[in-house]
């Protein structure tokens, strides 16, 4: 037998060195959190998807450094992982200076700094901000987003079908469906419309039928009105794999990709797609058009994200940065770079391209009915109180309905029950 002594001596040496190295690294850190940083280190700003959206925040951070010398470090984290990261950071006492989040997490809710000094006297849209009953401002919106309709203009023109271009002759859903069906026939496309698999988009659809969405009564029992049922039934009819492809809602098919393929006449998504389409659609002309009504003209708007500032030794510097960021001149620059709809009222933003599309969205938001704001503020109230449906009952139950697993009454009943048990009365 051969004993490879030489080789194994070196392996043993490596192993020993490894163990030693591990012990050394056990003591090393490189901690960059607020707590260990002190006031001299860069301010960490956790967010998601900035680079994808034009890099506006990175640009502003650079400008801030040029103007004040203070460094803001943009840390871009995958959207799905950001909440987990912040949760763990909170548990380990290692929160960053600030973050751009989708929702307030009860875990760190009480570790945030009051942003009232920034919002008082400003024109920031407070109806999209999370404010506690005592008046503490937990977060402020960074942008506004809204649901909207896109069409494949090339196909519409080829089929010779017109679409509304002014606010006076906005089409109904019936008119929209027949127009799109005609485009399908004349231009020979496979599908008429595709909608993202999201309760956010579906909500716009529901509002347009006169739905009052789901609201709790004083006892916390959720219910909705008849228009919701009509809307859902209409939606189910549309999802017949001819007008709308079933794969999107049933199997998480990519609606965005389908529209880009050029074989779908219309796409119900939202304002954030404008920047993407400007770069990535080259084969055909697209356009933003008015959402149909039946009979209500409505869009679901809200904000993609809010800024929060965390308590700690760097909080004053963080507040300074945020205040600087929301100065109208600076904020306009941010909105232009990242193609945001502004969250500050009365701002005129000139976009690099597709300005008319953005104007359309602004007019849709302005024309949105009261119910949209009401539901939005209810959602915010729950969020501020630390309650949320972490799943998406509206979407998930609708998916089951579309797949034929249950009927529409059961769907609505299930949604009522889940919202009631998870949320209860308004705080």
């Amino acid at each position: 037998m051969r004993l490879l002594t030489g080789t194994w001596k070196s392996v043993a040496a490596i192993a020993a060195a490894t163990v030693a190295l591990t012990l050394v690294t056990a003591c090393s850190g490189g901690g960059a959190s607020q707590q260990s940083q002190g006031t001299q280190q860069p301010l960490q700003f956790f967010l998601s998807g900035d680079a994808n959206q034009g890099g506006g925040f990175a640009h502003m951070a650079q400008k801030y450094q040029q103007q004040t010398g203070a460094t803001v470090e943009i840390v871009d984290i995958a959207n799905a992982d950001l909440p987990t990261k912040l949760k763990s950071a909170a548990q380990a006492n290692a929160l960053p200076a600030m973050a751009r989040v989708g929702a307030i997490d009860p875990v760190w809710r009480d570790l945030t700094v009051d942003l009232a000094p920034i919002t008082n006297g400003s024109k920031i849209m407070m109806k999209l901000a999370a404010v506690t009953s005592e008046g503490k401002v937990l977060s402020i919106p960074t942008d506004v987003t809204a649901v909207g309709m896109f069409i494949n203009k090339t196909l519409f023109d080829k089929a010779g079908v017109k679409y509304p271009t002014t606010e006076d002759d906005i089409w109904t859903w019936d008119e929209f469906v027949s127009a799109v069906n005609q485009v399908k026939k004349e231009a020979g496309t496979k599908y008429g419309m595709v909608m993202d698999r999201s309760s956010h988009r579906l909500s716009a659809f529901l509002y347009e039928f006169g739905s009052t969405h789901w609201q709790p009564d004083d006892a916390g029992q959720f219910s909705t009105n008849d228009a919701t049922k009509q809307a859902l039934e209409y939606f189910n009819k549309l999802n017949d794999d001819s007008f709308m492809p079933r794969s999107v809602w049933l199997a998480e098919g990519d609606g965005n990709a389908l529209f880009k393929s050029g074989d779908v006449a219309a796409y119900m998504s939202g304002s954030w797609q404008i920047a993407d389409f400007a770069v990535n659609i080259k084969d055909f002309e697209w356009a933003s058009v008015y959402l149909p009504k039946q009979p209500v003209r409505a869009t679901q708007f809200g904000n993609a994200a809010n800024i929060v500032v965390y308590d700690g030794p760097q909080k004053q510097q963080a507040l300074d940065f945020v205040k600087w960021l929301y100065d109208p001149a600076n904020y306009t620059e941010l909105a232009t770079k990242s193609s945001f709809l502004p969250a500050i009222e009365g701002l005129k933003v000139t976009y690099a391209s597709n300005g008319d599309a953005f104007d359309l969205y602004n007019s849709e938001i302005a024309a949105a009915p009261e119910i949209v704001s009401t539901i939005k503020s209810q959602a915010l109230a729950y969020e501020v109180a630390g309650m949320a449906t972490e799943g998406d009952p509206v979407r998930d139950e609708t998916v089951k309905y579309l797949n034929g697993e249950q009927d529409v009454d059961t769907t609505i009943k299930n949604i009522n029950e889940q919202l009631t048990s998870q949320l209860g009365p308004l705080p």
Partner: protein
Amino acid sequence: MKALRSIPSTAILWIVALLYLIPVAWFVLSSFKPGSELFSLPLRLFPQDWTVSGYVTAWTRFDFSRYFFNTATVAIITTILTVLVSAMTGYAFAKYKAWWLKAFFICILATTMLPTEVIMPSSFIVVRNVGLFNTLAGIIVPSILTATGIFMFRQYFSTVPDELLEAARIDGLGEFRLFWLIMLPLARPIAVVLAIFSFQWRWNDYIWPLIILTDPKNYTLQVALRSIVGADNIDWSVLLGASVISLIPMVILFIVFQRQIVNADINSGLKD
């Protein structure tokens, strides 16, 4: 004559290989397509408009050399420790008899039976309480124990004839020297396989390094890559380019080490 006889096997092998290759080829070729071409009909395998813009953006946006270094450091240290611990434990399970060994083996198997999502939040609490938060050891130590690795060595050692151990013991070799000097070298092929697996697992780790480490400069490759998956859309051409770049080191590693698995003269201890 042999050339003729090799045709059926070669043909089958390469037909199957081609089936496996097509999706990968699609992926690599798509990384050379501009964003607008990715979804347009009719679908094409080859790009119409060859471009490296995805790669360029990926390379400039991400500091690949730093992430390679971070990930490689963690992967190498963890792999060495993993192979050692798995070998020791697998050997004990295979070559010694005791009821508590069998029980512990089942316990080890049980570690594969809880979904990671369940274990992770609690593991985080453990790591924090033990004081390993924000240290490299915090991502290395929890990854050392792997039921798969232990299982691999157990099965492998179980095929080594007991007579070999008896002979060595009669020769006067103590248990540990027996393990170090004879058994471990014998298991070189399986050690290489486990090393490749372990390296790949650590190379793809993202959630754990993300939540344990606070300085983004210490993040691993996958953490950086996943940030391309934004809130509202995914920049496919960057994702594809970055994914291809991140695959290259693993492929090189495999090409270099796969010979160890196939050509190692395992029978050296069993001369007939």
